[in-house]
């Protein structure tokens, strides 16, 4: 039985929902801006769940009032990397938090090959598991 047909990457918020429309994305950005969080756009072609640090597309955007500026950058990024994963991150800089508080995908490759589970037999017939993205078999930039 296939548990995840299409092998859709499920990382960050809203990832089990249908793709967000641009209006929905900008409503989410508006919420982040209302809370005073700095929003940034990041991209990668390595979808491994432990790949925490994605490439930044430009600087994080501080002191914005309106989502239009961020939508502009998202669309720029989509144009530059149409077949990469792109996510929007909102960073909360208040003391004691100082970490991303929102993060969701806004672009994904057309075809996602998904992950394979590999097993390694070790001492005493124990088994170690690891996930491996089929896409990362190819070098960076040629994966999707």
């Amino acid at each position: 039985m296939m548990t995840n047909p299409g092998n859709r990457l499920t990382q960050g918020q809203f990832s089990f929902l249908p793709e967000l429309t641009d209006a929905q994305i900008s409503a989410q950005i508006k919420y982040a801006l209302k809370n005073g969080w700095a929003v940034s756009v990041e991209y990668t072609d390595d979808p491994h769940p432990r790949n925490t640090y994605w490439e930044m597309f430009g600087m994080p955007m501080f002191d914005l009032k309106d989502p239009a500026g961020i939508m502009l950058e998202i669309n720029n990024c989509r144009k530059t990397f149409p077949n990469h994963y792109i996510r929007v991150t909102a960073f909360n800089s208040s003391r004691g938090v100082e970490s991303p508080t929102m993060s969701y995908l806004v672009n994904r490759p057309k075809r996602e090959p998904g992950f394979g589970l590999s097993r390694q037999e070790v001492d005493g017939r124990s088994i170690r598991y690891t996930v491996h993205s089929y896409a990362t078999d190819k070098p960076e930039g040629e994966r999707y």
Partner: protein
Amino acid sequence: MSEAKQAETTLPDDAPVDLEAELKSSNVQEVLDQLDRELIGLKPVKTRIREIAALLLVDRLRKKFALSSETPTLHMNFTGNPGTGKTTVASRMAEILHRLGYVREGHLVSVTRDDLVGQYIGHTAPKTKEVIKKAMGGVLFIDEAYYLYKPENERDYGAESIEILLQVMENNRDDLVVILAGYKDRMDKFFNSNPGMRSRIAHHVDFPDYSPDELLAIAKLMLAQQNYRFSAEGEKAFSEYIPLRMKMDHFANARSVRNALDRSRLRQANRLFATKGRNLTRNDLITIEAEDIMVSRVFDEADKK
């Protein structure tokens, strides 16, 4: 909005609409009245703002009948001598446009050349773009815009910044309104060397100089805002002061008035210190007397001539 829903909200052709009600619901009248109260003079400016407000209101009514028209270009150019209220009007403009629903947030981002133009190759574009992104949903006010273009230096990065601005003014008309401001002659020179900029700006508003009466009214308004007032003689002295100051160099309309008032407050404080003998009342603290104004150097210089 789906098509079915759009059809539902469209009014039939002969349905009456109420311009008055629309005006009331937008609260824009309140802002216009406030403008009338707090800005003395500036007839052409107020007329133009009224016209723009009317256009946007009618546009809103037209939308109810699904009469689409292109979003009007609202980029503006304010020209006028120093201290004629260009910046003040720009910040009001942001609020008016917000109430009319033309801009979404209604904040004003005020910048000069320093904020737009970078110091080395490749620095200008990101800097300008960052400012533009901050201004989106509101009004971008570029003070002394003619500094952006320096014809004597062809390697100046200002031109790059202008190019980006032009692009945004054309493509993101819904997202932000750009207001340029500067002195008349230099702005004219700026537009002559950047014809693209001139054609993208629909509204050229000229701020006239104030008359002596208007300046006196402004002075009284400024004092009232700081909880001061003229005594009867004080007002008379100040109305003598204004024409003398206007004849001198570096006269900057309302700004000169504000400076003169600041100095007379200084002298008033000094005078109060000197009257040690008696206790002061509230009245003493808020009143600017004639002597606070008469000691001004403006009167001395007028005597010399």
